[in-house]
């Protein structure tokens, strides 16, 4: 048996056991009634004590959603989603507005501990979590935020970092001004659904000229059965400010599929920069393709100000289906958008992901580096759009899409759309497809590495340019995750 074949078989034989985060937290929760209706929307809005304008905003989204059709252009296949069979809101019963960590259900704290997510500031400060890296965390469990750390210290710098449900009350002017300003309510089927029923998520505002003193991050956890998760994240970087933000996601192993339809909106004003990193590790389903998260996410950044910059970095290893295109609207003159992506698919996973770089302002530039890795019987599609408006003189884009195949039953696809309406635009596109060869594996094994270690090493080399874009402590995490998602015994 050829070495690659062995690896492929090994990879195939890994099922749910390789997924470390598949446990379920036993906690009492409160849910909305099953199905989606105006009542559900009102229920969610009432639960969060929302002002009338937001309730109306949600209802408007709901009404429009009922007239829309699910998109079918992506290269993904799944049985029809029964939207009336889902729950749209679930919250741990005890977690209604804990004032401090002491009031948070210990079961929840244990859950985040198991996930390796630091929620106790004191311990982090004491160095218990190792490395001494300080990261402010917002932890979202099913539909609500359960804890946000380092709020006081961030407030000193003028940074607002809180659950969006809280921001609605504490900073209504900001929320009302920016919510839906990047991803309009009617943008697409899933974004509209999210607008109607979004539960919680993070809100970040960085005041003018402030460099956020620490990394911000949100950890999303789906726990409840048959419950959709619809978070909403809104980040605003005011003039001349900077923030680096990371989101992480996990979910228990369940036999049925779970829907996740999030919306993320980023806004940068003049000279501001947002660096947004994602390590997406939703449950991918078992070796037969049962279960796993349907990840239909709309992420978009608006470089509204001149010389502003938005950079998306994503490491995608989870979900049964991934449908997501973190994009940049390069509206401000000389603004810059970046997209760095590692998308790994294994088993029966389907990935259709990429980005959109819409050049509207003058002398805008963008860069796309996408690394797709397909193993098992998975399909991995890069779909990207680069567009220059007729006024976008001097627009520049560089795109590089590399695909790596492991085994001979998986697929890699690249679907670039490039459109320029301005003759001074310069767009470059490079793409390669390669395969891990038996020779490479044998060479590494002759030097002492097992087949799994060799595969992980080669894959890590393949994705190196993108890993370097991640904040250091997360790059290490991502590297481990890549090994785990491709191998059974490594890591």
């Amino acid at each position, binding site marked *: *048996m*050829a*070495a690659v*074949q*062995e690896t492929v078989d090994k990879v195939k034989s890994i099922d749910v056991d390789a997924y470390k985060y598949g446990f379920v937290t036993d906690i009492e929760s409160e849910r909305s009634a099953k199905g989606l209706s105006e009542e559900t929307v009102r229920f969610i809005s009432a639960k969060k004590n929302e002002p009338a304008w937001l309730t109306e905003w949600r209802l408007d989204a709901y009404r429009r959603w009922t007239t829309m059709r699910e998109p079918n252009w992506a290269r993904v296949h799944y049985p029809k989603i029964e939207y009336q069979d889902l729950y749209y809101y679930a919250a741990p019963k005890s977690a209604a507005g804990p004032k401090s960590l002491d009031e948070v259900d210990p079961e929840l704290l244990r859950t985040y501990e198991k996930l390796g997510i630091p929620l106790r500031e004191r311990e982090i400060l004491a160095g218990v979590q190792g490395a001494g890296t300080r990261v402010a965390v917002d932890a979202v469990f099913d539909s609500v935020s359960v804890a946000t750390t380092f709020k006081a210290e961030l407030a000193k710098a003028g940074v607002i970092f809180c659950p969006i449900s809280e921001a609605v009350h504490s900073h209504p002017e900001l929320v009302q001004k920016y919510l839906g300003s990047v991803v309009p309510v009617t943008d697409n089927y899933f974004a509209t659904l999210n607008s109607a029923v979004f539960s919680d998520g993070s809100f970040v505002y960085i005041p003018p000229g402030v460099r956020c003193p620490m990394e911000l991050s949100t950890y999303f956890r789906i726990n409840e059965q048959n419950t959709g998760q619809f978070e909403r994240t809104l980040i605003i970087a005011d003039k001349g400010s900077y923030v680096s933000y990371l989101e992480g996601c996990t979910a228990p192993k369940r036999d049925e599929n779970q829907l996740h339809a999030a919306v993320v909106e980023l806004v940068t004003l003049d000279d501001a920069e947002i660096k947004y990193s994602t390590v997406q590790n939703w449950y991918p389903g078992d070796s037969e393709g049962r279960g796993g998260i349907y990840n239909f996410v709309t992420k978009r950044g608006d470089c509204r100000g001149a010389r502003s910059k938005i950079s998306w970095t994503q490491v995608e290893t989870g979900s049964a289906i991934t449908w997501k295109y973190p994009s940049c609207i390069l509206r401000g003159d000389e603004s810059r958008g970046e997209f760095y992506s590692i998308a790994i698919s294994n088993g029966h996973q389907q990935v259709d992901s990429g980005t959109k770089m819409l050049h509207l302002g003058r002398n805008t530039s963008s860069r796309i580096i996408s690394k797709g890795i397909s193993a098992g019987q998975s399909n991995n599609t890069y779909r990207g759009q680069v567009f220059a408006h007729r006024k976008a003189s001097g627009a520049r884009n560089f795109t590089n899409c590399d695909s790596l195949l492991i085994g001979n039953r998986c697929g890699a696809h690249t679907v670039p759309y490039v459109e320029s309406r301005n003759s001074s635009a310069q767009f470059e596109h490079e793409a390669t497809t390669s395969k891990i*060869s*038996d*020779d*490479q594996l*044998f*060479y*590494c*094994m*002759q*030097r*002492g*590495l*097992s*087949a799994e*270690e*060799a595969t992980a*090493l*080669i894959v*890590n*080399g*393949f*994705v*190196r*340019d993108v890993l370097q874009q991640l904040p250091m402590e997360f790059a290490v995490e991502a590297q481990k995750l890549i090994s785990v998602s491709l191998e059974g015994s490594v890591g």
Partner: protein
Amino acid sequence: MLEIIDLHAEIDGKKILNGFSLTVKDGEVAAIMGPNGSGKSTLAYVVAGRAGYEVTGGDVRLNGKSLLDTGAHERAAAGFFLAFQYPLEIPGVTTMTFLKAAINAQRKQRGEAELSTPDFMKKVRAAAAKLGVRDEMLRRALNVGFSGGEKKRLEILQMVLLEPSFAILDETDSGLDIDALRIVGDGVNSLRSKDRGFLVITHYQRLLDHIVPDTVHVQSQGRIVKSGGPELAHELEKNGYRDYVAAAE
């Protein structure tokens, strides 16, 4: 000590090794010469445990233990090293990273502690300096964009760092200029010791001017057809393989 005993092996149903037998003792340097297609590289691959070859008979023993039921990485950890004729490129993985991964993978298999980064760096720098491997090469992706000579030097560097008890050098001289040949030869000679054996596979006498063998063997049709001392290599250089090949048929 490497013992190859009546080894039969095939790939895709095609017989390549036909009762190959050879013993190389500790401290001995043996050379195998032979025409193209005589199965020299196959021998190296089968001993190294490359997937895809089927051993249909015989045995291979390293220091008295059979290797046949073990994987390539296990043989490496047991002290076997193969210097490749065509070293592979691993894009994105720096030479330094690769060396560290290899050393620690072997140590892990043997139940030893991982080498600390400072210890590792010290070791690599010292060995690299001797072999004329520049620091810049260690920071580049493994073998990517390296010249033929650089690749071969790096093979020897890996051999020095992994300290095998037995090494096969598969046509290490191919693609080398005279200076590189000397550096590679010096590298191998510096590793010669009473408890380490070598098997040097080559087409030409010239490598054996630098690495003087204790024994020389002629391979044809998948087995040894003639054995002798260093003088046999000179004779082959003059007369070619024809007589031995004919005798084997």
